[in-house]
């Protein structure tokens, strides 16, 4: 793991909304095929970090990004074809978004954008992604039903299937379990463990125990700053690097 070139290198990343600094000079590396956890209290800048990685800043008119983000060695803060970038970086938002089309079309949406037309090819992608998202068995008989009519937990897995449909190299998950019951959460966690053989995953979570269960390494964000990053278990039980991290993971915060 140590000698692998990082999948993602972030250097001095600063995110501002107008005058407000949401992230202040963050630098960290994410290695290939790891699950990289990000924990931190509300408003610490976790979502802003993901937005910068996916270049979704245009939805936040006041958002300004400085610093460098190297993805496979290439700085993506200035690339022109953000559409191609977003195809390589899948995102799962906190609240599931089933697009107002059929389950099948939800998953086929990305491949279609990328120009896949053949029905057999689309069929194959849809089935593979729904299987990987542990949703196939529940929906295989009603692929033409509206995606937005699924339950919250199902929609979140549909969202994951959709995010996987373009074979992303990087998968960003933002508090995916916020609207999902514990059983479904466990199933999705299993899915993520299997996925990490193929994709690099960045997992933003409010649940420190979820980070502990899943993440190989974890970063702790606090008030726009990166306090600490390291092997997840070390944050919980290793020698104390920064007392604030230990306080946070042990729930002594405030």
């Amino acid at each position: 793991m140590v000698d692998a070139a990082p999948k993602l290198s972030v250097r001095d990343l600063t995110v501002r909304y107008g005058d407000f600094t949401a992230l202040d000079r963050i630098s960290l590396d994410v290695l290939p095929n790891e699950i990289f956890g990000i924990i931190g209290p509300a408003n610490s800048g976790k979502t802003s970090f993901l937005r910068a990685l996916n270049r979704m800043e245009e939805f936040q008119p006041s958002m300004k990004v400085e610093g460098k983000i190297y993805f496979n060695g290439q700085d993506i803060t200035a690339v022109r074809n953000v559409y191609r970038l977003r195809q390589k970086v899948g995102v799962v938002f906190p609240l599931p978004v089933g697009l107002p089309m059929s389950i099948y079309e939800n998953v086929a949406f990305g491949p279609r954008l990328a120009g896949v037309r053949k029905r057999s090819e689309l069929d194959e992608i849809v089935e593979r992604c729904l299987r990987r998202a542990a949703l196939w068995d529940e929906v295989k008989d009603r692929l033409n039903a509206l995606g937005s009519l699924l339950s919250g937990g199902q929609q979140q897995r549909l969202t994951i299937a959709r995010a996987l449909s373009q074979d992303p190299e990087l998968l960003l998950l933002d508090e995916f379990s916020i609207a999902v019951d514990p059983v479904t959460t466990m199933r999705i966690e299993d899915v993520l463990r299997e996925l990490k053989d193929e994709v690099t995953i960045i997992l933003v979570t409010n649940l420190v125990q979820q980070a502990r269960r899943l993440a190989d390494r974890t970063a702790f964000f606090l008030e726009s700053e990166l306090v600490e990053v390291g092997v997840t278990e070390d944050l919980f039980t290793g020698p104390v690097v920064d007392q604030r991290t230990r306080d946070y993971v042990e729930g002594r915060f405030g």
Partner: protein
Amino acid sequence: MQTDLDARGFDWYMDRAVAVGVFVGGISAIVFIIGIFLFVTREGLSFVIGPMDLKEFFGSIAWRPTSIRNPTYGILALMAGTASVTGLAMLVAVPFSLGAAIYIAEFATGRTREALKVLVELLAAIPSVVWGFIGLSIMNPLIIDLFDVPIGLTVLNAGVILGLMAAPIMTTIAEDALKAVPDSYREAAEAMGATRWQVVFQVVLPAAKNGLMAAILLGVGRGFGETMAVLMASGHSINIPTSPFDSVRALTATIAAELGDTAVGSDHYGVLFTLGIFLFLVTFVINLTADLVVRGVREQ
């Protein structure tokens, strides 16, 4: 036993008074509409059960209500006039209004957006007689010059005028329909690597299609019922148009132009009211359809 929970205080009476007031207001609107419909029906009824011949009414192009010896009441040409003008108006208004709505809702930001919205609302407030005036004094010579035709008061003129007139209100409604599509859809689609146009065409428009249909239907209803501008710009001559350069006469314009000259209770008077019933029914059906279509949106 009365407790303070049963007491009828000021608030209680106030609440009751407001409830009754609102009820009366709401009901009276309905009563007025029904009253108008009954009045129109009563005035038209003498014609419907008397001299009306359904086959002639809908099948003949001969509209000669003032003929002394042999009056005929065929509205085919009038319907063709209304239909051709409304149809052309929609050809103009649909692309304009949908384009404007898409631009305002999906692409324009900040000041531009606000300015455009105000502008569209201003346009919607222009009285129809002003549009008719534009048709008469600007479009008319323009068409004569441009196409080298003897008269510019034609289907083309009235259709374009009516289209421009209906476009602003259609834009407003269509924009509302687009705005009702949650941003999370747009964001999810863009996160998949869709471009803005792909988002608009593959996600937003399909999601808003019922609202957009309703906007178009309301535009049709507007075109159908418009009187003054059409009267002024269409040439007002009875004709089944074979080209956009023919003059026509619309149903509404006929009523407006002729009702003043009829004797109350005469056949001519009755037939004009029958036209009114007909228009009423058609617009009712159009609005009802629009309403049902919009309801379809909510149920999704």
